[in-house]
């Protein structure tokens, strides 16, 4: 359990950013679910929940999602799920329970680049921009390789580009952390596959070209090449080899759904 000396309800992003520069013991609070499990001594806990950053706004080009929008907000947003074939609903519905998903925030899920994140896997399957208070827009696919600093993630912007997506994950028990997460997107240029919880944070493989019509041998070959490009590891939820085997199956299922439609 953490301790907090001052709880600051931020009145502006500038105030929040300035406080957040004062060292490790100053921290932006998202849903407080993961943070609470630690033993940090926090001097200033900075809460962004009064800044109106909990909205999902749709425009012609895409969806602008505030960092304080919750996982249940993206799970139930009709426009977002229609555009991406229930990608977000499928990605988050196994995460604990609805009460948890009403607390957990998008910012708190994406900013720390958590290794077990279903949410990161889903957003990486789309053309997603991370909007940071000081650095501005950064593609999510670049953001995951930038060391975490003291900037503030204010929004995500998910572009509507006509891609079709499918999501699969595997858990040892329902509502547990995933052993492996997988999302495949079918774009005009081909397929893009995201694999997370390996147990490292999710990453995308885009440079494997495949034909539109797949035989089961082609799918297996494609999966093998994708898996070969990523680093895997072992933990209590599964060995490296087990995760690779699961990845093959989940990639196959996603591609099958995308090519059947």
């Amino acid at each position: 359990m953490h301790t907090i000396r001052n709880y600051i309800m931020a009145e502006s992003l500038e105030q929040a950013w300035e406080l957040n520069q004062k060292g490790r013991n100053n921290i932006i609070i998202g849903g407080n679910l993961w943070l609470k499990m630690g033993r940090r001594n926090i001097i200033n806990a900075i809460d962004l929940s009064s800044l109106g950053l909990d909205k999902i706004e749709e425009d012609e080009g895409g969806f602008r999602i505030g960092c304080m929008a919750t996982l249940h907000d993206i799970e139930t947003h009709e426009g977002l799920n229609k555009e991406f074939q229930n990608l977000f609903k499928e990605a988050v519905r196994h995460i604990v329970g609805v009460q948890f998903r009403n607390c957990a925030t998008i910012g708190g899920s994406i900013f720390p680049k958590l290794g077990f994140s279903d949410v990161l896997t889903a957003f990486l399957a789309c053309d997603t921009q991370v909007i940071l208070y000081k650095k501005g827009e950064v593609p999510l696919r670049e953001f995951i390789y930038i060391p975490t600093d003291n900037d503030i993630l204010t929004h995500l912007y998910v572009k509507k580009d006509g891609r079709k997506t499918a999501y699969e994950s595997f858990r040892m028990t329902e509502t547990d952390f995933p052993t492996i997460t997988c999302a495949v997107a079918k774009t005009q240029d081909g397929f893009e596959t995201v694999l997370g919880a390996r147990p490292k944070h999710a990453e995308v493989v885009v440079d494997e070209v495949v034909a539109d019509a797949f035989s089961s041998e082609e799918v297996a070959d494609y999966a093998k090449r994708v898996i070969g490009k990523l680093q895997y590891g072992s933990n209590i939820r599964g060995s490296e080899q087990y995760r690779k085997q699961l990845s093959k199956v989940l990639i196959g299922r996603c591609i099958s759904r995308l090519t059947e439609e």
Partner: protein
Amino acid sequence: MIIDLFINGKKIQAETAPDQMLIDFLRGLGYKSMKRGCDTGNCGLCTVWMDEKPVLSCSVPAARAAGHKITTLEGVQEEAAEFSDYLANEGADQCGYCSPGLIMNVLALKREIPNPTMAQIKEYLSGNLCRCTGYQGQYRALAKYFGVEE
């Protein structure tokens, strides 16, 4: 720090510590329906509503509730009693420790999805753990309460 909020429709002003969680704040004020279970956000025993949405009071900082509407089981007693009868009739009340959290989430489900399927019920309530039995009594009660085929 002093916070103003609404609890079960009543305006309240009370003191909280910067690291106090909502469950301790509410129980300190005499609202004892929400229980502490896992204290890690997994079991759902501490469920209350914040602005009509079910949340885990063990994980929400009390300070975040400032200006918001909090509803506990004490604030929905009539509805809770109605569903409790279904639980009791199916022998699903068991030790009763998880019942307040379950009931709060069932009533939230009723508001969000008034006519759920059994699959939707199971999914919505997956964050409410009961350590007594295997949930079959609860599922029978829920099926009857929502009028769905098991």
